[in-house]
């Protein structure tokens, strides 16, 4: 599973599902935005509000086709706090899933303030989508394509 900011996806595969989890009774609310670079300028294409809530999990499906998503950036900003006062730390996971296969996962263990203190942890990052090169594509086929 890649740990870089690049997510390799199958351009011919199914829609991309993004799953967000927070354990230990930590609550989180976040915004995910899909950005596309058009003529040297980033344009907002899709926006999702994600609340992990009582279940500690939430997910959404990107509307953009995987074939059109290369070099797009999925960026997020997450606010989180601990509802259970004895809990100070929790694990966060952001996973990109395509056709039931995990394409990319971001895991982090974080110290989280207590909701009852009136404070929240704010953090965020982004991931860039790249198309997988078909492993069965032979070199001779590649040369044919260039001719």
């Amino acid at each position: 599973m890649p740990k870089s900011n690049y997510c390799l996806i199958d351009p011919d595969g199914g829609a991309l599902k993004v799953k967000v989890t927070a354990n230990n009774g930590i609550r989180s609310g976040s915004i995910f935005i899909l950005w596309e670079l058009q003529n040297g300028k980033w344009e907002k294409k899709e926006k999702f509000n994600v609340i992990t809530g009582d279940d500690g999990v939430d997910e959404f499906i990107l509307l953009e086709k995987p074939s059109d998503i290369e070099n797009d950036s999925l960026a997020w900003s997450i606010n989180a706090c601990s509802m259970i006062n004895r809990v100070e730390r929790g694990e966060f996971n952001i996973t990109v899933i395509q056709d039931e296969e995990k394409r990319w996962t971001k895991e982090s263990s974080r110290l989280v303030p207590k909701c009852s203190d009136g404070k929240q942890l704010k953090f965020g990052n982004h991931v860039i989508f790249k198309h997988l090169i078909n492993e069965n594509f032979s070199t001779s086929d590649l040369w044919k394509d260039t001719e």
Partner: protein
Amino acid sequence: MLTGYSQDSDQAGDNQEAYSFKLDYNVPESPAFAVLDANPTTIMRASTPQEIITQLASNFLSGNEVSPGLAFDFNPYFTFGGRLKSVKEYRNSYGKRFLANLQLSFATINSMDFPDDLLFSGGIRATLFDSKDLIFDEQLGQDIDNALLPNDTDEPGPMNSDDQGTVVDNPALKEAYINAKTRYMEKAGGSLALGYAIAGRARDNSFKTDSIVTYRHQAWLVGQYDLGKSGMSINGMVMYRYDQTPQTTDNNGLISGIALRKYGRKLILSAEIYHDSMKKSIDFGGYAEAYLIPSITLFVSLKKETNAITGNEDVILKPGIKWNFSQAKK
């Protein structure tokens, strides 16, 4: 437990209201202090533990004999790596909830009863049931979720890279807890808790093996019922105590009684009556607890105490403080 994280500075006046939205006013007593008779009350509370608490025992305000002591209470399950999948699991799994609400406690105290020795103790407390457990407040969960949802102005840019994160104030969270506190105080409900503690003496303040003796064991069951809008609460407790002091060799018996508490937003008043089968006496006590300073709870108790050496009984006015370690990190 002293974990640090980066955070924004508090806004002016923030600390003034910090204690007003914390639900720390119904914090159960330290089991380790209970076995040392360092708690200001005899009849304990049964509610779910709220915080990691460090308590200081002292009657310094009265100018009487000083008995400084320190108790540290924490949850062993989370401290030693226990995990919870979600709030839903806490609500649905009795076993996980039981573990999440365990309270392990250690304390030391310098007692006038044993002036040359250091008294120490350890205890554990389990919440068997709490119908007012805050984690079950679904409205609070929804209010927190709404408060956590970022504003449009917080939309992340395409190259957003704030992986480290920062801790920031969120006034909407405070508002959610102020409302939750009102609901909590107005809700009727009960709780039940079980505890065990052991006390020992380090003779001449030495922790060599042959200098350490245990002198007391006790186990107790305590129930609490909050009447709701009146802010009144009834507590009942049955405790078995095995005692081995210079005055009471192999003494054992039951301490049982009830307490009536009146919960205000910044002041708790309590009166208790209990029977001690070892002393064959019925005793009374009074207690007041005030939340006037953030992180610190001031209390004063009035109760009859017996000197373990002389056997004399005196009614003692004992002021003291509780320090909420978690809040102190702010």
